[in-house]
């Protein structure tokens, strides 16, 4: 009888820019000032969009909204490293990914205004509509990555999800398929420590989420998700690895949503004020500011200018979206099939008639 060790694994944690602004020079990615400027502006735009959306929801002009404030770095910086030929699969809190991928702010407002027209994917983008159900996008992303391998396309797939999604069977099925097929996919888990109210310790008994990748035969790494340099360096390596045909990576970004899960949620029921305040001090935007300041490319005047530009873009986008919102009975029938079947045509005609009759009655 023999007993030998058949597997031993390790999972690393990476932080390059710490909370006090110190940089690990050995790990620091070589970033041009222009890259930092673009990424910073994107992060500020995301934050302004997010705050505007929250305000609009409170005024009743949007319905449900799910804020992203606090998680901008892991989304914006990772998406910034993808090319046009690449593809993202996202979730309901991925506003930063959408903005970094080049979705118009107007389109995003239309989406969160609850219109069918908001779902339209612009013709010049290759990304897939966001998922509301948890973890469903993961196997789809793996399939998309497998297709680019089969079709010999130079396209990497990035898929975004939260800590809660890692409990769904689909997460495990997806990672397994990705591992078996060495699919060119990057799994980006934004671990914001809570699935609505449920803390991470109830989600999984394992020490990290990153280590789950080991069981599926590929690398997982845990990073400081509020550290733009760690996100940049890790994502860059994962994308290059996928592009080179060396398979998938799981990146667990430790981060925190500053706000509620959604506009219907009250986080004071499950999080302490102290915890929230500590994380606000760990704001990825502030940390990036400090880094840029040390490099001599951030100051108050720059900040005011970036902020003003972002605000203006966001305000203008909402005005345009509001002017464009329209709902028609056709909207809900038009895209169910390539060719509308008879039953839908009948239902659509019936609804149009009913809506006209109602309008007449109101007169």
């Amino acid at each position: 009888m023999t007993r030998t060790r058949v597997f031993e694994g390790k999972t690393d944690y990476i932080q390059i820019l710490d909370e006090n602004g110190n940089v690990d020079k050995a790990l620091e990615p070589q970033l041009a000032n222009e890259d930092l400027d673009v990424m910073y502006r994107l992060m500020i735009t995301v934050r302004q969009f997010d705050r505007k959306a929250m305000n609009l929801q409170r005024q009743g002009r949007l319905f449900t909204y799910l804020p992203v404030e606090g998680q901008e770095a892991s989304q914006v910086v990772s998406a910034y490293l993808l090319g046009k030929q690449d593809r993202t699969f996202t979730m309901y809190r991925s506003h930063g990914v959408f903005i970094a991928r080049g979705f118009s702010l107007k389109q995003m407002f239309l989406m969160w205004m609850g219109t069918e027209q908001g779902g339209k994917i612009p013709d010049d983008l290759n990304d897939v509509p966001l998922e509301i159900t948890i973890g469903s996008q993961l196997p789809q992303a793996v399939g998309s990555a497998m297709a680019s391998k089969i079709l010999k396309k130079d396209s990497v797939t990035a898929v975004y999800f939260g800590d809660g999604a890692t409990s769904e069977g689909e997460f495990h099925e997806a990672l397994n398929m990705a591992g078996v097929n060495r699919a060119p996919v990057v799994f980006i888990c934004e671990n914001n420590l809570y699935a609505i109210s449920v803390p991470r310790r109830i989600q999984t008994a394992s020490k990290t989420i990153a280590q789950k990748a080991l069981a599926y035969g590929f690398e997982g790494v845990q990073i400081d998700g509020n550290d733009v340099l760690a996100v940049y360096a890790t994502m860059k390596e994962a994308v290059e690895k996928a592009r080179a045909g060396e398979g998938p990576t799981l990146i667990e970004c430790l981060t925190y949503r500053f706000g509620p899960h959604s506009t219907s949620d009250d986080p004071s029921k499950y999080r302490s004020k102290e915890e929230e305040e500590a994380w606000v001090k760990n704001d990825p935007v502030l940390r990036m500011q400090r880094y840029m300041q040390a490099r001599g490319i951030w100051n108050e005047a720059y900040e005011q200018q970036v902020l003003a530009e972002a605000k203006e873009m966001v305000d203008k986008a909402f005005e345009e979206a509001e002017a464009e919102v329209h709902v028609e009975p056709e909207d809900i029938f038009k895209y169910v099939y390539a060719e509308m079947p008879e039953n839908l045509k009948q239902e659509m005609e019936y609804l149009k008639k009913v809506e006209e009759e109602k309008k007449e009655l109101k007169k």
Partner: protein
Amino acid sequence: MRDEMAKMTMIDAINSALRQEMERDPTVVVMGEDVGKNGGVFRATVGLQDKFGEVRVMDTPLAESGLVGAAIGMALSGLRPVVEIQFSGFIYYAMDQIVSHAGRMRTRSRGRYSVPMVVRSPYGGGIRALEHHSESNEAMFAHSAGLKVVIPSGPYDAKGLLISSIRDPDPVLFFEPMRLYRSVKEEVPEAAYEIPLGEANIVREGADVTLIAWGSMLRQALEAADGVKEKGVNAEVIDLRTISPFDFDTISKSIEKTGRAVIVHEAPRTCGMGAELAARAMDHNFLNLKAPVVRVTGFDVPVPLAREEDFYLPDAYRITRAINQVMSF
């Protein structure tokens, strides 16, 4: 039994039913995402974890299939789990466990085992929620053997039907119309009471047309019935209450009297419960019918997003139109 009454919303009534059943029966456990510390996203389970502890009121990992599968295992082992699926569109993850296993365990074990489990879920539209939050999927489960499907139409029914569901020996899907969670209050007995499963409720008597509805559609049907009354049409309004197995006897007797039927549901038209009820009317009431049975339903499309959901949801106007249609024969 005490006969004290209290004004309750549907959420209060559900909470009261859960609390009382947990007090009465130590094998009743509540499990789901956010049901413990947070008290549920709609607050249906608020206070239960404080009272009964983390063992009997469990916050679970985010895994609907695992959750329902584990509940089946618990039910096979002497517990009575009440599972909360946060929104009806999230129930599909657990489809295999519900349809292929919960509903078949009694048959499969030739009566040796049963699955006394309740799966609660908010359902239906009307609160301008996100995609997958407003589905009406009762017909999918009514189509599956071995499951019971129950839908309350108000606070009083919610409490009595939920208590009966928890005490029932078979798996019950309990769909709660979320637009009614807080929008109506009713006098509800403080003490526990049962409303039998499988019995429809004649909410209003009438001789001219039978209106059949459930869940939030009952209120729309009643509004339409009020409207046509002014024109001399007396509608009999029936709340189906249990979607499967349903009480066609009550409906059949009503159609014998009225000769006309309008069925209202929020779920899509094709293969919805309306189709089944209309077919039963053909089986049992063919010679009583003075007009074709008419359905007022959602459409065969994905439930529209928030701003367009009013296009989809049947309302009193559309029901009135259908009543006029059957009265024109």
